[in-house]
């Protein structure tokens, strides 16, 4: 009798541990699904300069003290990706590798500028720790106010003619890429894209 109970106990424990492991793995997989399925494009916030409008010229102070102009027509016709971040925002930190690879891939036509605000002493250790020396890093509260950045990380894509081409809250690599996609296709947002797709389907049917 005792042997039977011990055996049943052993088997039950093995099953319980296996089940706990499976539950943990399932939760992890659901997490990955959420990340992938979640809003396919950068979430547009109807604030600040609209897509298609001219980006106001703002002179911001770079972290090394040099002034830098953001917006306006550029002589070399290169585009600017303005990436708003903060040293205390965990999602911003997660996005840095994606930002770095995007900057590398699109370097032929794009400059990445990191933007934040606050005292320089808070940002210098962050730049060193995350090795962000390769990017211009500007500290300017007026810049954030101009684009009405309420949540981070936030990105604005400005083309060489100083026109806002895409913008939005970026939480994942896909959101970041959707900004480039929006510029390539000449669409302001994911909403435009969905509307365009629907018209094409209608046309096909007719």
């Amino acid at each position: 009798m005792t042997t039977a109970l011990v055996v049943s106990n052993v088997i039950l424990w093995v099953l319980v541990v296996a089940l706990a492991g499976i539950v943990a793995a399932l939760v992890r997989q659901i997490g990955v699904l959420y990340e992938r399925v979640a809003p396919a494009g950068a979430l547009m916030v109807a604030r600040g300069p609209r897509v298609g409008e001219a980006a106001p010229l703002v002179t911001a102070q770079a972290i090394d003290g040099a002034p830098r102009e953001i917006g306006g027509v550029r002589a070399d016709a290169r585009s600017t990706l303005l990436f708003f971040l903060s040293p205390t925002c965990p999602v911003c930190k997660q996005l840095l590798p994606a930002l770095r690879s995007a900057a590398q891939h699109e370097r032929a036509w794009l400059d990445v500028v990191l933007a934040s605000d606050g005292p320089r002493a808070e940002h210098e250790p962050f730049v060193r720790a995350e090795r962000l020396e390769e990017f211009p890093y500007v500290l300017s509260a007026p810049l954030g106010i101009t684009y009405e950045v309420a949540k981070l990380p936030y990105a604005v894509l400005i083309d060489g003619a100083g026109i806002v081409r895409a913008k939005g809250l970026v939480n994942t690599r896909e959101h970041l890429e959707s900004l480039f996609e929006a510029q390539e296709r000449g669409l302001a947002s994911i909403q435009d894209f969905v509307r365009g797709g629907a018209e094409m389907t209608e046309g096909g049917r007719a």
Partner: protein
Amino acid sequence: MDPVIDHTLRLGLRLLFAAALVHKLRDLGAFRRTLDAYRLVPAALVPVALTLVVALEAAVQVLLGGREPNPAGLVVAGSMLLLYAGAIAVNLGRGRDRIDCGCVGAAGRDGLSWWLVGRNVVLAAAAFADLAPVAARELTAVDRLTVAAATCALAGLYVAADGLVANASAYRRLREAV
């Protein structure tokens, strides 16, 4: 209290604190920035606080490692967990919910939440509950199996619960978007 429960709780707490300690030691710079971001100690005292936290987490390992129940280790472990809960609650109260939690696991990666406070309070309650007198009884082979398997199961469930909390913000975003 039966010694099996005592052993399971102590082993579980040791596992938790070991994971927390390894997480901190792997990137002390990040832990320092986290302490800074919590804005609870003056900037000049951050290195002192950092050393203290690491030392206390290491002390939990030693104190709870013995064969006999150790009230001091349990009090240190429970107090640390309450301290973390308090630190998170204070920053939530200040509205600073976007700072890095500094927690081990996935739950704190999107910032702070009341779930993290609740979780730490429950863990602290478990540590303090283990202060109850433990019955004298020799551990048999079956008891050892119970302790080992229950600890594994608790660890798995902890990771699962941690994952659910981590997913919560992504789930909310998804619901808001649709």
